[in-house]
């Protein structure tokens, strides 16, 4: 899992002397993404919130949002309605040529990334049998 930190310090003027205080909690992007997924999970029985665009194209230990919520159609439909409402303009690639929007290219890769199955708990299997 890639860890990406952003170090930010706030400057305080204390009696003419500058103090640099790190006022930021260091968290990985992955943690933030998983927290947001948790929120999505909690709200499955309520109104579906807006899902962050970066979360849609993230991977989580080899899984994507599509594989994690493969039993929740509400998540799929929320993603679809969000993406349909947006306009994705073409961008220039490294050669300066007109190319597809980078988010859509990433989305294509995420959609077509092979994913493993979720391991079911022994209790869930007993209930099915």
């Amino acid at each position: 899992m890639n860890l990406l930190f952003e170090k930010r310090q706030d400057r305080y003027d204390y009696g003419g002397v500058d103090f640099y205080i790190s006022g930021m909690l260091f968290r990985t992007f992955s943690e933030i993404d998983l927290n947001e997924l948790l929120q999505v999970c909690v709200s499955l029985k309520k109104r579906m919130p807006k899902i962050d665009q970066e979360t849609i194209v993230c991977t989580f230990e080899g899984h994507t949002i599509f594989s994690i919520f493969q039993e929740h159609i509400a998540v799929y439909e929320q993603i679809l309605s969000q993406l349909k409402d947006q306009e994705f303009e073409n961008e220039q690639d490294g050669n300066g040529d007109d190319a597809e929007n980078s988010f859509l290219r990433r989305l294509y890769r995420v959609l077509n990334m092979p994913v493993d199955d979720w391991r079911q708990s022994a209790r869930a299997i007993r209930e099915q049998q």
Partner: protein
Amino acid sequence: MREKLGLGDGRKSDGAVGFKAIPKKSLHFASSRFRESLMEISMLTQENSLSNFVDNQEDIEILFTSMSPSVVEFFQNSFNKTRFTKSVKNLDWKLGDTLKVIGQDNSVITQELADKCINEGKPEAEEAEDI
């Protein structure tokens, strides 16, 4: 016991399980709404193609037996569009032809190759001299 030994849960496997992309698994989900949503999401991207959803004739059969407006729209838009296909500007069409499906295993195509494909191996349409 099988679960404890990491041998799987003993259930019969089907198309919805295994190390595959979600679009291919979604064909075998009980609800067709998943694959229809995925098809509509996939159509937003340029490189979507039918092969992202189907592996074999059985998969195609599933799509044909559960036709819906989303599936029909997907069939109409399930062709690769790349910077190579965009570079083909003027094809030498045969008179009366309006559509030709060029099947190949890669997305790279040139003007010359496309002309040969739509004119059955000839570099230009036979009627070209008459026009």
